Structures are given as structure tokens and as C-alpha cells.
């Protein structure tokens, strides 16, 4: 068994008395793809927000690479190699696709504070940025404003931008939500191709994606961990089936 990269102890988030995430102990092993699933409102995104420090936890601790990151700033979490994507696609809409990716390269490699230099200094990142756009299937769209891309393309651009940081661990919040079948297949292929040397924690509603991609699955309902294990184990768990039957994703019962 490989070492544990990300770990939480008793992670809890309360919003005005309402407990969105309740005492969650999560362990993500290095090199795996780990899914966080559960019905709407289960607290998945809230978990992500706490892991990346966008929300302060009410209680509990978070360890990444053996280091307690509970108290650090969100930008510093990213600098440690834990980079997230967002449930609502997050691009810089009025910048071109190339500029979007370049912004990540620029952060990782310096000179972001140079206000006296021409932005032509950023051209040295162009080759790498074009390569990343090619990797996610966006060749030819480099000069298009990100806001004008189709939905699936935006998600792909987001992944390219995240990859530009070469993060040790990626958190993907519903990377395939709202996509056509073809787009879903492309993103799944993409995630498969980038997983080497990386750890991925992803929220995903599409269970066939989870089945095909993920090594470990944690099921969350009403803020609590309901079950954990590989797909076969989890999908046979009667409590999981019940939780899913009571919601909007009955597919699991047939799996």
C-alpha cells in the first residue's frame, strides 16, 4: 500500500448551526484516483473548499504530505502542490485560452510581479502552453477568448491550466458535469493520461466514470461518510443503494 498523501481528521463544517460536513476522516493514498460521491447537498464541494482552504473548517485538521495545512492560506495550499478545479467552470473569460494556461506557467516559474516589463516577456511560456492545449485537445483555439469556448472545452482548458502547475495532487469538482457523451469520454481519457505521478481526488456524479476511473470511493451523505472502498464493495452496500435510491441517481442500484 502506498503512503497517504492527504488526510483529514474529524473535518467538520457548520453553517449557522447546520452541519454540512460532519466529522469526516478521509485518507487519500498517493498515486490513486479517489472519488467522493454522494447525493446533492451531501457536502462534497464544502469538503473541497475546506481542503483547499477556501473555507475555514469549524473543527478538524487537514494534513497534506504529512504537514498540517489547516491554518494556511488558499494560495499557499496551491503552492504546496494541491490544486483544485471548481464545480462551475473556472476560466478567465476575457483572456485567450493561451493566456489562461500561461497564467499558471507564469505563477509556477516566476516574474509575476514584474510590472515594469513588457508582457512580451511571457512569450517564453508559449511553447509549453501550446503543448498543454494540444494535450487536452484544444489545438487551434489558443487565441480564442476562453469565455467563447464550448462548455466541454472550458473544462478541458481548466484542466490544462491546472496541469500547467504540474501539481502533485488535483481536486476535480465534477469535471464531467453537464457534458455530452463525447466530451465525457474525452475528459475521462484525459484524466487517465495525466494520472501518472499524480494523485487525484474527484467529485463525480456519473457513476460509470467513477467505475472506470477510480481506485477508491468515499460515499458522503448529509455530511457523513457512509461507506468507503472500491467500486464493487461500495456499490453492493445496501445503505449506499438506499441513499442513492432516495435521491436523483438511481443508476448505482443497477451497477
Amino acid at each position: 500500500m502506498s503512503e497517504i498523501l492527504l488526510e483529514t481528521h474529524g473535518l467538520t463544517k457548520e453553517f449557522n448551526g447546520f452541519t454540512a460536513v460532519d466529522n469526516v476522516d478521509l485518507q487519500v493514498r498517493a498515486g490513486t484516483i479517489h472519488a467522493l460521491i454522494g447525493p446533492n447537498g451531501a457536502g462534497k464541494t464544502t469538503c473541497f473548499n475546506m481542503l483547499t482552504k477556501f473555507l475555514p473548517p469549524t473543527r478538524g485538521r487537514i494534513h497534506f504530505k504529512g504537514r498540517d495545512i489547516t491554518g494556511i492560506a488558499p494560495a499557499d495550499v496551491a503552492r504546496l502542490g494541491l490544486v483544485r478545479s471548481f464545480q462551475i467552470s473556472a476560466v478567465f473569460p476575457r483572456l485567450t485560452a493561451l493566456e489562461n494556461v500561461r497564467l499558471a506557467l507564469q505563477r509556477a516559474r516566476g516574474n509575476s510581479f514584474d510590472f515594469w516589463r513588457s508582457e512580451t516577456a511571457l512569450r517564453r511560456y508559449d511553447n509549453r502552453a501550446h503543448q498543454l492545449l494540444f494535450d487536452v485537445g484544444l489545438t487551434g483555439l489558443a487565441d480564442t477568448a476562453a469565455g467563447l469556448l464550448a462548455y466541454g472545452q472550458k473544462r478541458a482548458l481548466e484542466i490544462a491550466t491546472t496541469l500547467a502547475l504540474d501539481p502533485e495532487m488535483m481536486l476535480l469538482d465534477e469535471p464531467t458535469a453537464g457534458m455530452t457523451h463525447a466530451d465525457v469520454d474525452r475528459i475521462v481519457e484525459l484524466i487517465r493520461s495525466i494520472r501518472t505521478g499524480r494523485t487525484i481526488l474527484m467529485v463525480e456524479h456519473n457513476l460509470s466514470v467513477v467505475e472506470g476511473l477510480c481506485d477508491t470511493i468515499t460515499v458522503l451523505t448529509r455530511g457523513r461518510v457512509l461507506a468507503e472502498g472500491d467500486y464493487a464493495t461500495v456499490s453492493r452496500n445496501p445503505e449506499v443503494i438506499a441513499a442513492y435510491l432516495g435521491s436523483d441517481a438511481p443508476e448505482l442500484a443497477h451497477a
Partner: protein
Amino acid sequence: MSASATPVALGAARPGLFGFTRAQAVGFLLMLAAIVVLPHVLYPIFLMRILTAALFACAFNLMIGYVGLLSFGHAAFYGMGAYVCAWTLKFWHLDAAAAILLGGLTGGLLGLALGYLAIRRSGIYFAMITLALAQMVYFFCLEAPFTGGEDGIQQVPRGTAFGIFPLHQDMAMYWLVAGIFIAGFLLIHRVIHSPFGQVLKAIRENEPRATSLGYRTMHYKLIAFVISTFLSGIAGATTSVVFGIATLDGVTSARSGDVVLTTLVGGLGTVFGPVVGAIVTTSMENYLAQFGSWVTVTQGAVFVVCVLAFRRGIVGEIAAKLRLSL
């Protein structure tokens, strides 16, 4: 901000020299030509009023137009720059260029201190906290002995610039002011089109995403604020040399309001908007001065018309019509 509704690529037009698009380069050359020709036609004093107002508005525009933060306290930096410049000029007999630079540094340092307190807020909260802090600066200036209270610092000699250029003639003064304006204008343009400016755009477009890429966004906003307040200090200092006076007028909230108005009228977030806005508001002040309090009423009316009819300001509307970025 409504401007971001249509995702037209900001960087799509290939930038040429200094990051100017072709249309902007033409605009810049026209502006240079006007700066050279106009003092032979119009009063240099009037033109210097415009140029300093334009520099102040350009500095302000860096925050509202490119960082998306509305400062309601920019007079603090303008006015303190003016005081320090006038004081060192009058009592230390400093070189005018050095005194102006000192005024700018005063604005920038004060900007660092006040910005540090304000920059974590956004939207209306940022506007309110900058207004409150600027009011504190106003009361400080009212009480502090070195500002001369209600009288201000008067009869400041212009002296010489760079040790060799005497400034007592208006034309000599004019060229210094023009040089300062152009340098400030180009500095702002360079900042916007730099690796740093690229990050500012990203923060304005989607701050959580910029954070998630590892950008400590507060640092970038604070640096932009310091550059903006430095140039505001330069604008205030330059004005005090031109008119030989620095008064409480420079640190009032009315002055902060003026620069907001100027930038809105011209078009915020545009390169030439603050300049056009300064021409309009300064001319109005100048030609309506004989009607006394009607200046304020007319300014108010222009403000209302602008906000209702041309939301993007004069230059913003023209740019939208011509589909250019100006």
C-alpha cells in the same frame, strides 16, 4: 462589472510598441501632437490643469478600471503629495523635480499604509473604508501645523528643475508638466501590459481561480494600489508647483469625488477615457467658473447624464461604436 458580459479577448489584438494596439498608438500620437501644439493656442496654465487632472484620473483608473476597486479616498494621496512637495520646495528649497518625486513617494507610502488596511475589502466596503481613511487624513491636515491649516502653504516658489531649468516662466513649467504626464501615462500603460498586469486581469476576471493557481491576490492588488497612489501623489505635487500653493482643498472628499466623476465621464477601464474626462471636467470648471455655484450643479447634471446615457463614458462609447479598444 457589466463590461465582462461579452468575452472579447483582451489580448487578442496583437500588441505593438508598449502594448498599444494600432488604434491606441494613433490616439497616443494625436495626444502627443496636441500636447505640443496646444500651448501655442490656449493658456498653458489651463492646459497644465488638464494634464495634472488627467494624470490623477489615469492613476485612479488603474484601480477602478483594471483592478476593479473603487477608491473613494484618492484625494488623500493627491493632497499629501501636494503638501510635502510644496513644503520641501518652500522651506528646504529642494529642486522642483526632487520635490515632486518626494510628493509621489509620500502618496505611495501613504497608499501602502492605507491600502494595507483597505485592500482585503471589495466593492462598496472598499469604497467606504478608503473614504473613511481619507477623512482621517483630512482631519490630520486640518490640525497638523506644517500644512498651514485653513491657509495652506502659499507662495511656493517654482524654483528650478534638475538644477538647471528655471520654471518661473509658464512655458518652461508646461514642458515639465507635459513630460511628467507622458511618463506617468506610459508607466500605467506598461503596468497594464506587463506580466504583473496579466495577473491583475486574471484577478479581476476570476479571483478565486487566480487564488487556486497559487496567486496571493492581495499582494498584487496592494502593489497596484501603491503605483496608483504614487502617481496620484505626483499629480498633486505637480499641481502645487504650477500654482505655488497646497491647501486643504487637495485632501477633501470633494476632490476624491472629482476624480471618480472625471474617470466615469471619460470611460473607466479605457486608456484615454481619464484624459478625455479631465478635458471635459476641467473645461467645465474653467468656463463655468463665472457662474459660481452653477459649476457644481452642472457637474452633477453631467454626471447624471453620463451614468444614464453613456454608461461606458465618452471614450468607452466611442470605442464600442468603432469596435476598437481605446
